[in-house]
């Protein structure tokens, strides 16, 4: 059966343009491949919905949406979802729960007393220690600043925006801290811990909501700066 008549074929797309899965980005010339792209029949195609980025000869697609996948060293905010006699199961917002062994807890815990130390629903600040090939991850609470979170509140931003919030000349995170006078910790899994005065917390929540709504637009940093100015009545 003829397969002709299917679509206009794969036409190349320029860096910065929006692509959907299956769109051809360019012909494969042996360059490096980054996130959201793959080689197929001599072409480099997008596998995710997002914008094409070309940096240092590496082609990738910055996705508009993506799930969080833990990487060793990530600072994350997790919730205790369950426990056994010597481990806790931690919800990191990833496809799989991580485990926190008793030996990596910040306090001395007797075998069988995990629930007494940290019960279901407790929020913790932890670091991803290791990941195996089947995506099982182990987190640790041994390290500077890693602890149970007993105050403040946790909000979220899409995980793919995390790097955007903490990078650049005037990072959005710094702008938020200055404007709200709150303590803020941004987890790599998109969870944000905020603690401070109620007025400051309100500013942060409002701004995070603005970021969620406008995360995919250009010049997010300057837009957030404008939003914070408007919020402060300037």
């Amino acid at each position: 059966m003829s397969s002709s008549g299917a679509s206009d074929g794969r036409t190349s797309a320029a860096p910065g343009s929006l692509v959907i899965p299956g769109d051809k980005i360019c012909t494969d010339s042996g360059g490096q491949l980054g996130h959201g792209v793959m080689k197929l029949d001599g072409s480099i195609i997008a596998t995710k919905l997002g914008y094409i980025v070309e940096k240092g000869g590496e082609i990738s697609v910055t996705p508009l949406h993506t799930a969080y996948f833990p990487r060793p060293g990530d600072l994350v905010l997790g919730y205790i979802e369950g426990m056994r006699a010597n481990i806790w199961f931690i919800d990191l917002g990833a496809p799989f729960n991580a485990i926190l062994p008793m030996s990596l807890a910040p306090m001395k815990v007797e075998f069988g007393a995990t629930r007494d130390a940290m019960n279901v629903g407790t929020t913790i600040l932890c670091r991803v220690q290791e990941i195996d090939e089947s995506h099982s991850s182990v987190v640790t609470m041994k390290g500077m600043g890693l602890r149970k979170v007993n105050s403040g509140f946790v909000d979220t931003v899409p995980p793919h925006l995390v790097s955007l919030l903490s990078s650049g000349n005037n990072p959005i995170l710094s702008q938020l801290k200055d404007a709200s006078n709150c303590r803020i910790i941004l987890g790599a899994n998109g969870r944000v811990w905020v603690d401070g005065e109620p007025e400051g917390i309100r500013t942060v929540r409002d701004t995070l909501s603005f970021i969620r709504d406008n995360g995919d637009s250009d010049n997010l940093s300057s837009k957030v700066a404008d939003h914070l100015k408007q919020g402060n009545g300037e």
Partner: protein
Amino acid sequence: MGYGDVQMIDEKGNRVDGRKAGDLRPIEIELGVVPVADGSASVRWGTNYVIASIYGPMEAHPRKIQRQERAVLDVRYNMAPFSTTDRFRPGFNRRSREISKVTAEALESVVLLELYPRSKIRIEIEVICAEAGTRCVGLTAASLALADAGIPMTDMVVSVASGKINDVVVCDLNKEEDNYGEADLPMGILPNSGELVFLQMDGDLSPEQFQEAWDYNMDAATKIHLMMKEAIANKYGGES
């Protein structure tokens, strides 16, 4: 004359709804219609209205459905009780089970499942209003919702059905044509490569008619793919 002597296409080639043989029904696509889902899309296709939403990847439960080397797609196609003129009995039935299965198999051809071992991607397809060709609309909407959720895929899937009425092959059957027509050929097509991931046939088509229906479906897939790109560009403000 067709089944029951119902004339559904006149001598000038006009169908009951005024379309020509190769015309599609009007299609409207919208993304991000379910805020709590990881990705979602709605498709209005003629009178059909289908919403697809994606949840995951997540840990696959029960554990017996886990695959050590890849993710599984958990597709649930469901017609709302009010989606048809006669009340549709709610719940899973043989038809919805079949459509869920073929939809999952079609999507498995494009989703990069090996990136998510032991996990599950839940795909909910809800038919709000049914006219004809809901499995095609559901598959197309699911493909859009997967893209919206950021699930990696090698291509989109576009699904469309052509068929035969009064011995004439026509594209994208409406309800009357589906009910009283002589054949129906729904196909799932990868628009960039022209590969096929899903094909069913109900009724009889000669080899020539089969080729004609095939060509209609391929042409329609190109048009729908462009509509998909347009809808995505409208939503996310880019030039796709």
